Structures are given as structure tokens and as C-alpha cells.
């Protein structure tokens, strides 16, 4: 959709833009898709959005001798196609990712995880982040480019690229961009950031390791237990289970229809997370059949239920999507801890 504020470029300008895009490809600055050439004046526009020293280090990978400064973050946000006013979100996102547990190793891991980015608070409307229909799909600039800025920072500033330091066995398309807003307006419960102690009028970014998205269908029942058992069953698929000393966890992005049906039956968000945790697991016999019984007590009966997570805190629950069908999503994760950071108010 045209905003009607940019004049139609001349043929010469379009040719120049193509050459500049090709130049970026040749320098190895892209994720495979075209980037916006990071001219110094564009980077300066982004830096003007924040009150930060451009040379301040946001995120370092000491073992690789690489660091991302505020200026490098801005250059990659330009390349990702962000608007300048998105830059405070990009910075807060990068700082949140830096604070994730194992943020040193997992970018290079064979598990090939992406980072799910969730926006809360008024910034969603101010900048146009989508939390409704097609929440995981292409089409919204803020979602697409803020998520992409993270990947370009990882590749260009931190030097973690495919065929070298990124050792993903398969990876996921979510690594291109994986950024959503919570649908606070259609959620019956307190939003994620309020649950974590922030004010409703504050804007936050939450980041979580996630291996992709798995759709969960339940359109035929309005019983909370039926809906939640479908979600818990999807959280508990055998291939996703990876016995680890860090414990297992899961991210649930519940569709508003499911959330409203469950809330109408009187369930709080806390109760939902507890129920999901109680049913997140498999019977010992099934784990033995799948050879996923490493560390399991040999005396445990086949019928015994083995919980995958240490507690409800390992289940992150967000409401997003359209209120048009009984569909939710589970994002399997290898390290369940998440980080939420406040996005500073707009610079006056």
C-alpha cells in the first residue's frame, strides 16, 4: 500500500538502486534477499532515534572476536528494511537476545534455532506490528524487518553465517524473521509483559529461542480440556524431546478463539500454564519405545507419566492471531528461558 509520500523515482535512480543492491550481495552482507544499501546518511537517521553512543558495544561474541556496536546495529537495521523509528525496538531486542541464557553457543548450534520476538504495549500500534491474522506470515513491514534485523546482525556483525560458524543441521525459515505482536485487544488475559511485572502502558520486547512453528487444530470442541490437551500433545511430540540438564520447555502462541473459549469457562492464564505443564510429557513406555529414555529411572513403570519441564515457568503463553478459527501454535524450544526488556519511550 502506497503511503503517498515518496515520489516515483527516476529510471536512473532505480538503476542506481539495483547496482547498490548487487554491491551488497557481492560484499556478502545479505541473508539471500536484497538489502537496503546502508548509506552513512541512512545510518545517521537511525542513530538520531536513540540517545546512545554509536560506538557502545551492544552485543559481543568474544570467542569469535566480534562485536555489534550501536552503529553496526543501525547499519543492519537499515539493510533489513526497517524505518528509522523502529531502531529503539531493534536495540532493545538485541539487548534482550544478549541476555538470553547460552546466547554464546546457540547461534552456532546444530539445533538451528531461531529467536522468536514478541512485542507488547502501545508500540505495537505506534509502529504497526501485526498481532492478528497471518501473525507469522509475510506482509507487515515492522514484523518482517525488525525480525530480519536480528538475523543480519548475527550474520554481519557477529560473523555467524551458514557454511562456517552457523552449524545448523537444517535450520528453519523462522531464521529469516520471526517477530510477532501479542493480540492484547482480543486476549482475555493479562498480556505477557504485565504478567512479567511491566505496566500495561509500557512497551516491551520479549525474546525466546524457538525452533519454528507447529500448528494446533481444535475447532470441534469448546471444552478447555480438549483444547489444552491438543496443545499439550503437540508440545510433547517425541521428536521434539531432547533430554537436557537445562530442562525442556515450550512456547504456546494461542489463537484468540481458543483463549476466549478457555477464559469463558473461568480459567486464568496461570491455570492454563499449570495445566499445560502437567500434561507436557510422555509415558515412560513411549519414551523407551522412542529411545528417548536417557536418564530415566529403569524401575519406573511404562505407564508412569514423565513430565518434560521442571515447572509452569518453562511454558511461555502468548495470545496472537485472528479470532476466526480454533487454531493455535506451539513453538518447540531447546532452551526455555526468555528475556523481556522495556523499549525506552520515544526520544523527545
Amino acid at each position, binding site marked *: 500500500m502506497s503511503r503517498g509520500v515518496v515520489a516515483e523515482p527516476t529510471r536512473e535512480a532505480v538503476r542506481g538502486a539495483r547496482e547498490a543492491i548487487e554491491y551488497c550481495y557481492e560484499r556478502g552482507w545479505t541473508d539471500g534477499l536484497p538489502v537496503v544499501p546502508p548509506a552513512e546518511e541512512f545510518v545517521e537517521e537511525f542513530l538520531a532515534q536513540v540517545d546512545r553512543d554509536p560506538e557502545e558495544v551492544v552485543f559481543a561474541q568474544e*570467542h*569469535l*572476536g566480534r562485536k555489534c556496536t550501536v552503529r553496526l546495529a543501525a547499519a543492519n537495521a537499515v539493510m533489513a528494511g526497517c524505518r528509522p523509528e523502529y531502531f529503539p525496538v531493534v536495540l532493545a531486542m538485541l539487548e534482550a537476545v544478549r541476555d538470553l541464557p547460552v546466547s554464546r553457543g546457540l547461534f*552456532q548450534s546444530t539445533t538451528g534455532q531461531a529467536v522468536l520476538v514478541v512485542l507488547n504495549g502501545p508500540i505495537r500500534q505506534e509502529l504497526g506490528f501485526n498481532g492478528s491474522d497471518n501473525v507469522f506470515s509475510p506482509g507487515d513491514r515492522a514484523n518482517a524487518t525488525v525480525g530480519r534485523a536480528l538475523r543480519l546482525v548475527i550474520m554481519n556483525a557477529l*560473523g555467524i553465517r551458514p*557454511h*562456517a*560458524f552457523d*552449524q545448523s543441521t537444517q535450520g528453519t525459515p523462522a531464521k529469516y524473521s520471526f517477530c510477532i505482536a501479542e493480540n492484547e485487544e482480543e486476549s482475555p488475559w493479562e498480556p505477557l509483559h504485565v504478567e512479567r511485572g511491566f505496566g500495561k502502558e509500557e512497551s516491551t520486547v520479549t525474546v525466546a529461542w524457538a525452533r519454528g512453528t507447529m500448528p494446533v487444530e481444535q475447532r470441534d470442541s469448546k471444552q478447555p480440556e480438549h483444547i489444552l490437551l491438543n496443545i499439550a500433545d503437540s508440545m510433547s511430540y517425541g521428536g521434539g524431546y531432547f533430554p537436557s540438564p537445562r530442562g525442556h520447555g515450550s512456547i504456546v502462541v494461542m489463537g484468540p478463539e481458543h483463549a476466549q473459549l478457555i477464559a469463558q469457562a473461568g480459567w486464568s492464564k496461570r491455570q492454563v500454564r499449570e495445566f499445560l505443564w502437567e500434561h507436557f510429557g510422555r509415558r515412560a513406555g513411549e519414551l523407551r519405545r522412542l529411545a528417548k529414555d536417557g536418564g530415566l529411572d529403569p524401575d519406573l513403570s511404562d505407564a508412569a507419566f514423565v513430565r518434560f519441564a521442571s515447572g509452569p515457568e518453562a511454558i511461555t503463553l502468548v495470545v496472537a492471531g485472528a479470532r476466526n478459527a480454533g487454531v493455535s501454535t506451539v513453538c518447540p524450544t531447546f532452551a526455555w528461558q526468555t528475556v523481556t526488556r522495556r523499549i525506552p519511550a520515544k526520544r523527545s
Partner: protein
Amino acid sequence: MADGILFEERGIPAAAVITDAFRRTADAMARTQGLEGYPYVAIPHPISSLSPEELRMRAEQALPEVVRLLQEEVKG
């Protein structure tokens, strides 16, 4: 690889062991740490599905090479 090179820099002999599926990353890390061509032991992949006995056999097979690398002078 990074740990091995950091040990060597501090004068502590080290031998990095990888499985052969990780050669590309190992070579990239040696370049990044300023020690291109830093030698390592590459054992056959995979290992995570091996039994303890099979794993011990791999270790025994790798041992002479590990000892050789520990004795070798590292050129920085």
C-alpha cells in the same frame, strides 16, 4: 578449537578433537583465532549415537594422534 588455541597461546599444550562433520567450522575458527592451519584430530562422525564401548574405541583410535599433537610445536 577456540579453547585449544587459547591454551596454546598461554603455553599449555592442547589437542583439539572434532568429528569430521565439523571440519569447516574448525578451519574457520582457526582462521578467526589467527592460527590458520592449526592441526586437530578429526574422528569419524557421528558419535552421539555410539555405545560407551564404541566411543571408547574411537578414543583409543584417536589417542596416538592426540599424543602427537600435544608434543608438536605450534607455529603461531
